């Protein structure tokens, strides 16, 4: 079924089309949720809320632009709202403790490339993690991030820089990258 037909059938509330849409995109969208969430359960709740929004607002997508991009934006906003609503930004994590955490090998998906990098990203305190997700991966500007998270643009920028340094340190500590004067070589997963 083509994407256009799929969207049209979803607008017409076809159960088969809705299931197919979910099956096509739940993997990538759940990956996004997982990057923002503290645990799998939170990620599943985010995905559930996000898909409900997607199905209820799908008629507002007018086949202009990228449908996958539209869904990703809906999911990201859902994740941010979820974190705000559940006061996850208030969770404090000691930076010292995160270097001792093990990278989780929780499913078959962890065998995929990038899984360990993502798991390291998830070790970051939620503030750093959210800003890195939004800026480096989703491509939002610091001013947009400031609006979304209700923080100042400069705060977003500083959070990002600090988070980036912490993440690099974690990757080195976990021997996933190796500092080499100006360069860091990948070790672990590239050897696979």
């Amino acid at each position, binding site marked *: 079924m083509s994407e256009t037909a799929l969207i049209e059938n979803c607008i017409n*509330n076809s159960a088969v089309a809705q299931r197919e849409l*979910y099956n*096509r995109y739940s993997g990538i969208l759940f990956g996004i949720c*997982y990057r923002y969430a503290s645990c799998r359960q939170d*990620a*599943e709740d985010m995905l559930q809320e996000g898909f409900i929004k997607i199905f209820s607002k799908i008629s507002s997508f007018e086949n202009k632009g990228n449908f996958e991009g539209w869904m990703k934006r809906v999911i990201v906003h859902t994740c941010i709202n979820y974190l705000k609503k559940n006061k996850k930004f208030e969770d404090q994590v000691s930076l010292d403790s995160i270097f001792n955490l093990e990278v989780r090998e929780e499913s078959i998906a962890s065998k995929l490339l990038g899984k360990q990098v*993502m798991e390291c990203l998830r070790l970051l305190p939620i503030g750093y993690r959210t800003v890195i997700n939004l*800026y480096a991966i989703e491509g939002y500007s610091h001013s947009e991030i400031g609006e979304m998270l209700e923080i100042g643009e400069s705060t977003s920028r500083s959070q990002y820089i600090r988070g980036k340094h912490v993440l690099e340190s974690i990757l080195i500590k976990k021997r996933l990258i190796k500092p080499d004067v100006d360069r860091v070589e990948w070790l672990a997963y*590239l050897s696979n």
Partner: protein
Amino acid sequence: MIFNKGNTPVNFEELLLSEASRYRMYPSEKVWENIRKDIQPQTRWPALITIFVFIVLALTVSTIINYPKEKISITKTTNQYLRVATVKTQQKVGSPIFYTQNFYDKTIKVNSHIKTTNKLSEVNQTSQKVFSSVENKVNNVDENSTLSIHNTLPVSHSVVSNTNFEPIESVYTKEVTNQLLEPSIQIKNSSQFAINTLQLNDEFLNSKKTINKTAKSKWQVQYYATLSNSYRTLEDDKTRSRYISALSDRVALSKNVNDVVIHKPMTGAEIGATLLYPITKKLFIKTGIQFNIRQYNIDAYNAYGEANISFVRNNQLSTLSTISGYSTNFENALGAKTNLQNKLYEVSVPIGLEWNVYEGSKWGLSLTGSVEPTLALNRNNFIVSTDYKYYTDASPFVRNFNINTSAAMFFTMRTKSLKWFLGPQIRFQQLPTYNDLYPIKEYRVDYGIKIGFTKPLH
């Protein structure tokens, strides 16, 4: 900072973006289940409303049918000349006396054999006439009948009334046979008389006596339960093979799906209630409501893979792909063997016939058959992918309405008020469990033992 990914230098943002774009994780099945419940409530509510309306209707009908017929009670507690009856006769003596009495609350027609001994000790021409003794025995009271008491008064007898007629509050018509009236009674008016006030010394009335009159209904009600095992056969409509080019799918198509899917029957149950109405002495028509649980297990292996369901619609092949956690065979498996439980909850309305082949004083034999329009109440079952590799969620394909047929043979045993029955039952599902989009058709058959009892409705 520059990172080196292989031989290609990349910066931090590019690295994260690259890894994140390839990053996939898969949620558990319950996420979709929750989403589906939220976005398709309209597919669930009509079923619930239908069931609710049906149950209310069934209860209403059964209440109306079961409502006890009004007991016709005549209770007399007095031993004095207590009742005043206004009696009118249109009498040519020897013919029935019709009289009205105001001491019954309601209009009653009673047909009975009544032996009446009336002693009219004194008949006063001017006013009240007293029956000194009245013996009434009322037996075998039946509905829709008239209490007949034939008057055998001699022609010369007449009872004369005065003019003080009591208001007639209710009309009670009787034909009276006064078989043992004493001939000495002086009756002045032989052609027509009216007894205004009639004081009865009535042994029947003197004792507290109740005539309970109960209607005998033709309706019977039957309560039953069945334990049954569900078996199924799968038929794969392989017309999609014309559209499939992938070798692996073609290999799958060469297999028999019944050999791939290992199914283990499990015990399910039915409980229900039906009303029976006799067409003839031995043949009954029946209908009611029934709740079914049908289940079986499928052998599977824990796995992660893509379950593809291909179907042909409008001469085009469509494929619905889902991420599955269960494989049909060990080759695709990553984990241990497991069992998938397919449990179907249904409500149905059996409509059928019951034939009492033999009915002795205690034991009997009955045959019964019914057609059962059936509504599925749940959807969370598993189906095999059309390449036979994985099991996946069946909910998009579950057929809401189905038709079942059943046949059973009962041995019956009559007790004081109930007729118990026990016997084997076979039940066929006439339409595939899943809708026409899903090309592998599942037909179910249940073998079970049914037990229950039948009792008349009053």
